[in-house]
């Protein structure tokens, strides 16, 4: 290694790779993976979100799952929580909708109003 800049470049890349171990505040996408969610296709929704994030090379988003919140009818349910902003809950998120939520809400910061079932 000949320059400090070179080290810095590797550091930035590697940090993106290990960011989710840091527990720092960042955008979170939470997919309902209760039995109801899975039955409604939440697994495919989750895969679509992962795939879309990877395609767009988005590294600073944490994707987790949760259990049934009691709105089984609305599953698959996806929460998007941006730091400092209210939690936005989407209902009946198919894999196509999921991709669009990533594109619109995560990337462009535009909440997809028509699919929102709760916002707090």
């Amino acid at each position, binding site marked *: *290694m*000949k*320059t*400090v800049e070179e*080290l810095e470049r*590797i*550091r930035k*890349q*590697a*940090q*993106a*790779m*290990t960011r*989710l*171990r*840091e*527990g*720092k505040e960042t955008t979170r996408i939470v*997919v309902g*993976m*209760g039995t109801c969610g*899975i039955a409604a296709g939440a*697994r495919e929704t*989750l*895969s679509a979100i*992962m795939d879309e*994030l*990877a395609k767009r*090379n*988005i*590294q600073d988003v*944490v*994707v*987790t*799952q*949760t*259990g049934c919140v009691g709105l089984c009818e609305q599953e698959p349910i996806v929460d998007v929580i941006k730091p400092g902003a209210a939690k936005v809950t989407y209902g009946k998120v198919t894999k196509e909708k999921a991709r669009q939520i990533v594109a619109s809400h995560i990337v462009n910061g535009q909440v997809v109003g028509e699919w929102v079932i709760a916002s707090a």
Partner: protein
Amino acid sequence: MEFYRSHVLVCGGTPCVLEGCKGVRDALIAEVKRRGLDREVKVVETGCLGPCDLGPVIVVYPEGTLYQKVRVSDVPEIVEQHLLKGRVVTRLVGEAPQAGVVKYEEPTYLGVQERIVLRNCGVIDPESIEEYIARDGYRALAKCLTEMKPADVIEAVKKSGLVGRGGAAFPTGLKWSFTANADADQKYILCNADEGEPGTFKDRLILEGDPHSILEGMAIAGYAVGANKGFIYVRGEYVLSIERLGKAIEQAKALGLLGSNIFGSGFSFDVEIRKGAGAYVCGEETGLIESIEGKRGEPRIKPPYPGTEGLYGKPTVVNNVETIANIPPILLNGPDWFRQFGTERCPGTKVFTLTGDITNKGLIEVPMGITLRRVIYEIGGGIPGGREFKMAQTGGTSGGCLPKELLDVPMDYFTLPEHGSALGSGALLIMDDSHCIVDIAECFMRFFEHESCGKCTPCREGTARLHEIVAKIARGEGKPGDLELLDELGSVMQVSSLCGLGQAAPVPIKTMLKYFRDEFEAHINDRLCPTGTCGI
């Protein structure tokens, strides 16, 4: 670069390896793949997480859930419930000090710990130089080589107040300055990883969990004193340490972080590994040097000290693994940052290995000056089985034995010697009231008799006689005057032995005589072992 939504860190430290973590890791990888999660979940092997008797231990991020005693048969449940559905498998979380959810920044299972040396252990993949770099790895080296003069580096280490963590507590900056000021065509940096003290396994777990921190620290030391060659003398039994160090050296060379003209500064540094063959005395710095030179492992007469006349007669710095691991953060964050930890006389932290009759056995790092009581009861979880604390031996087999009256003494390199003990390498052996002091003493003295190299008479004869007398007392053949004889013999060994082995061997006996004399007297005068251990 791959994006994963979850990282599963499997502890790959030796204690977990012995508990079968490799099988768990392989099962996790297979099950994750079978469930079609291998693009979403990454399984990473990491260094020691600390709770060594709860192994195999795994941590799932981003939640930071710590699972303990994970068996291969638990893997399908973890994958299905946690990784697929996001439900924590509570039965594997346990009630022990962590309450289920741990976070990377401040893992709650660590309690009052302060992690400087172990900053990367259990957090990164030790076989990935990139993950080390992500955690500010090699930035201290870059800073030293591009912004600081060698004298500035030594000055910073001096100011930090860092003292050697191998046991002797010699000021590290001062040690470096001896070698820096010596005029020679060749100088060496040696890393002493010949951790021979029974009950100590911190160096092993540091090397396994964060090998690059040692390479970086050694390179900084090399720059500071003008050495371009380093050797790591590591115990041959430390197979995993050797393997990971070897990989780390290769990776660092490939990136040009070892080798010639590092960061274009003109400074070159190379590191080689030397395996020890398992002699306790080779942890003594001159014995270690003899061994590297291919000779019989026996200590040299000092002076001259290695700082001016060491390996192959050249000026040589010999530092312990833990000391070296402290170097990069000190240089990166400055000496003032370091001094905020620990005590005024003894700044920084200390890594301890908790063993014996204690609930949470394992590896911990705490601020210097913490009391034994807090370590045993707050971090260690107290004495199991409803028994009473009897004694703690600090500093390994050559350290002193402290009774419950001394539980509130601050543990640092200067306070413990006032009570006849030593902080040593950081082994903490806890014993409950079921153990007989004479029996323990006999065991310790047998060890020293076996490990004495035989070069000097006080140690060769002294360790044998200490063992002989104590063994007689244990058999019920002790006679009046034996205790005085032990004490006198110990004093002679302490002042006349050639190296630390003979000087420290009487330490446990002397403290036992001071704090537990009545038990020895019961064996001699009443032919009675109060705990019924000795069978007389």
